[in-house]
């Protein structure tokens, strides 16, 4: 237990001391939300709609970059080999990184919620705010697993490149920046393959209640996808250990 506390403390310090990680992952989502959801809002419901989707966007950054590029660079430096020779359990490193990511996710979500509530005039029941927060926070898991798979498979250069490509594709193709219903038909089909799309739909089911959504289908799909990412992550982790 004390190992986990210390390990999480160390991860937090590392994250806080890396402004190139902190600034884009924490401030970019709320900045984008302010511009596109609030300032450019021409009397429609984009403040509500984009609250749901930018929330998912805010979660993706810390998860994919924190794990993908973070793990890859620490592995490349031989740090993970050394850790395997130490009497600290392997899960404490992953769990500490996960807890850190969840904290940063929560920190990244807060300004979006505050801007939505106080400036964007988004009105939700208190229970719905909590449901939305729960959905956004649990959206971390599939992206963390993607990050782990990347971090254990690629060198740090490759991980940075692929993390960026995935990050942007998941954001745009999953309809986090522009609603999917504005897309041409083939892109709407493509969105079905994006975990970000299904997570956004689940978040929308709470915020944008005017439209019927297949929440059962989206929940099932995201669970299946997450299990797939879990398998990939475990495979990548085992492979680098067995060399």
């Amino acid at each position, binding site marked *: 237990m004390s190992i986990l506390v*210390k390990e999480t403390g160390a991860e937090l310090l590392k994250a806080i001391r890396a402004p190139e990680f902190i600034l884009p992952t924490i401030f970019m989502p709320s900045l984008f939300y302010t511009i596109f959801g609030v300032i450019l809002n021409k009397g429609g419901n984009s403040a509500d709609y984009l609250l749901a989707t930018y929330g998912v966007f805010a979660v993706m950054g810390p998860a994919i970059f924190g794990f993908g590029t973070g793990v890859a660079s620490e592995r490349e430096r*031989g740090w993970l*080999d050394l850790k395997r*020779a*130490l009497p600290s359990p392997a899960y404490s490193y992953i769990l500490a990184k996960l807890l850190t990511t969840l904290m940063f996710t929560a920190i990244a979500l807060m300004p979006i919620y505050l801007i939505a509530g106080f400036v964007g005039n988004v009105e939700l029941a208190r229970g719905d705010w909590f449901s939305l927060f729960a959905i956004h926070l649990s959206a971390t898991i599939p992206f963390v697993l993607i990050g782990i798979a990347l971090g254990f498979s690629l060198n740090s250069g490759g991980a940075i490149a692929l993390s960026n490509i995935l990050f942007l594709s998941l954001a745009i193709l999953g309809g986090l920046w522009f609603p999917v219903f504005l897309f041409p038909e083939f892109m709407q089909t493509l969105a079905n393959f994006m975990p970000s799309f299904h997570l956004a739909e689940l978040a929308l089911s709470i915020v944008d209640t005017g439209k019927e959504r297949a929440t059962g289908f989206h929940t099932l799909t995201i669970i299946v996808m997450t299990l797939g990412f879990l398998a990939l992550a475990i495979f990548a982790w085992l492979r680098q250990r067995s*060399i």
Partner: protein
Amino acid sequence: MTLINSNSTELASALLCSDVIKRFGNKTALDSLSLNISATGVTAILGANGAGKTTLINCALGLLKPNSGSISLFGKAPGLAETKQLVGVMLQDTNLPDLLSAREHIELFQSYYHTPLSISQLCELCDLDAFIDQRYKKLSGGQKRRVQFALSILGQPKIVFLDEPTTGLDISARKTVWRTIRKLSQNGTAIVLTTHYLEEADSLADHTIVMSNGQIIADAPTEQIRASAGGAVIRCSTKLDAQTIAAVEHVESVDHHGKHLEIRSADASKSVKRLFELDPSLSNLTISKSSLEDAFLELNRKV
């Protein structure tokens, strides 16, 4: 093939390997390797690059699984949590996270061990005071190595593996590490270090293991390996040819070194006397006790 072997089975064993084979693809990194490292003193593992030193250490730590054979540390299997409590390690080419200070690294590592050393104890052993609160990124090569070294001994291990602890360090940083290794050894910790600085093994190691192509070609007290190179090395300029010199009594080998000859002799004074008889004009004579380097070159030549 073991050219030199001494049985030290009467001493308690720290690391015991028997018939260990490790292959990478079709390359055999460890070739039926057996050894027994005692629980006290400093043991140096010497060998050229690719001899298998690092592979051996990684197998002993449980980071690599041998294809066959068995390894035990104090009777326990490598890689188990209880084994890791007894083992300290400094791996080759390892960098700690840049953004934490030495103190923060130490505090994290202290949580891993049952009976960790305190920060002040580590500062004293490894001279960390001057930079304990600086971020790892800002430290010089020697300072980084000292931090890694401090972490390797922090858990009060019974055996410490140091994989090329001083590679890339300047001579003063290297001497600091040596001093600490000696101090640690006096406290009764077994130390296993790999190095390709023969000088390092020469000045530190009680026991030396020489590896070549995944096999052990010598395993004996350092003193004995040094002696195996022959009593001394005679350097001189002479008009005698190598064949004539080789025929001189006690001479073991003759090498050309520029204008000089290097003659290895089991009994230098007798050989020199005879050389002067054969060539009274012999000049530039020096005689030196053979070093571990001589022994190492000699051993590698025989393989």
